[in-house]
């Protein structure tokens, strides 16, 4: 398949006994968070990713497109990937609480994602994010043990239509 290796598929660990019980207990836990989308959110997101497409910022331009209004960049729901918890609720290194799982490792590295884009998002939309930790598994690599944390998040608009779904894999070692 071309010049590069395939992304690591979510190969389950053979033995879940490898994963501490406190971490295992977090699997299946779900959080539901609701966000209102503003023009400012979309504009700042577009600036942060360095995408100058006027469809994300210019209402006059957007009106002439098939969308008829400003829409958000395809992976905009990343803006809602991490919960707005106060700083004191985070670990000292600021690791997002979503991946702050009691494992015998501390360092976060790389990761992978499978992101499905659904209905377009526009200012004024209410987005409900349903976030679930779906798997934790371990692999032994060249540099030692790697722990994989998989979080599945479904984002829906006010009409209940899916606007995005991301299965994100975070790696710790």
């Amino acid at each position, binding site marked *: *398949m*071309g*010049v*590069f*290796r395939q*992304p*690591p598929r979510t190969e389950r660990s053979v033995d879940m006994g490898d994963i501490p019980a406190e971490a295992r207990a977090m699997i299946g836990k779900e959080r539901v968070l609701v966000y209102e989308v503003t023009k400012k*959110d979309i504009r*700042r*997101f577009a*600036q*942060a*990713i*360095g*995408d100058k*497409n006027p469809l994300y910022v210019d209402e006059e331009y957007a009106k002439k*497109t*098939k969308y008829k209004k400003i829409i958000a*960049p*395809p*992976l905009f729901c*990343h*803006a809602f*990937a*991490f*919960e*707005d918890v106060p*700083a004191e609720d*985070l670990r000292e*290194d*600021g*690791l*997002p609480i979503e991946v702050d799982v009691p494992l015998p490792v501390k*360092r*976060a*590295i*790389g*990761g*992978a*994602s*499978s*992101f*499905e*884009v659904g209905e*377009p998002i526009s200012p004024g939309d209410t987005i409900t994010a349903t976030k679930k930790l779906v798997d934790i598994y371990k692999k032994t690599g060249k540099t030692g043990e790697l722990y994989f944390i998989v979080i599945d998040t479904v984002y829906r608009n006010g009409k209940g239509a899916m606007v995005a779904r991301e299965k*994100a894999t975070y790696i710790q070692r």
Partner: protein
Amino acid sequence: MKDEKGFFERIHEGDEIPALTKKPTYMQLFMFSAITWNRHLIHYNTEFARGDGLRDVATHRALLGNFLAQMLSDWVGEDGKVSKVEWSVRGGAAPGDVIMCRGKVVQKVEDEKGRRIGCDIWIENEDGTLIASGKGEVALSD
């Protein structure tokens, strides 16, 4: 306009997607941390990142994905939309790196769900080292 071939007809398996060059900066990483409310030090504290064995602060996994999505979106334009982006971080990127998003068409599909184009996508740096790789899909409008 109708005389011209549509996007789906113009594109063939093996076609390369126009490359998109990006130069992540400290400011950009800060802005992306802020807009995603990702407060992990690894993205804005060089000392912390080096302590973790990195050259410098890390470009976010999600930001790399957004770069790939932008490449696909610039390519398909108003003829369709980005419908799927899958990627794995391989080498990672730091501020000051010049990185290039690239892609190649691997499959054209036309079925009851509509017309879609599947691609291999990846990001490499100036010496060709792989930063991220995966698959993308664009869905064509009717």
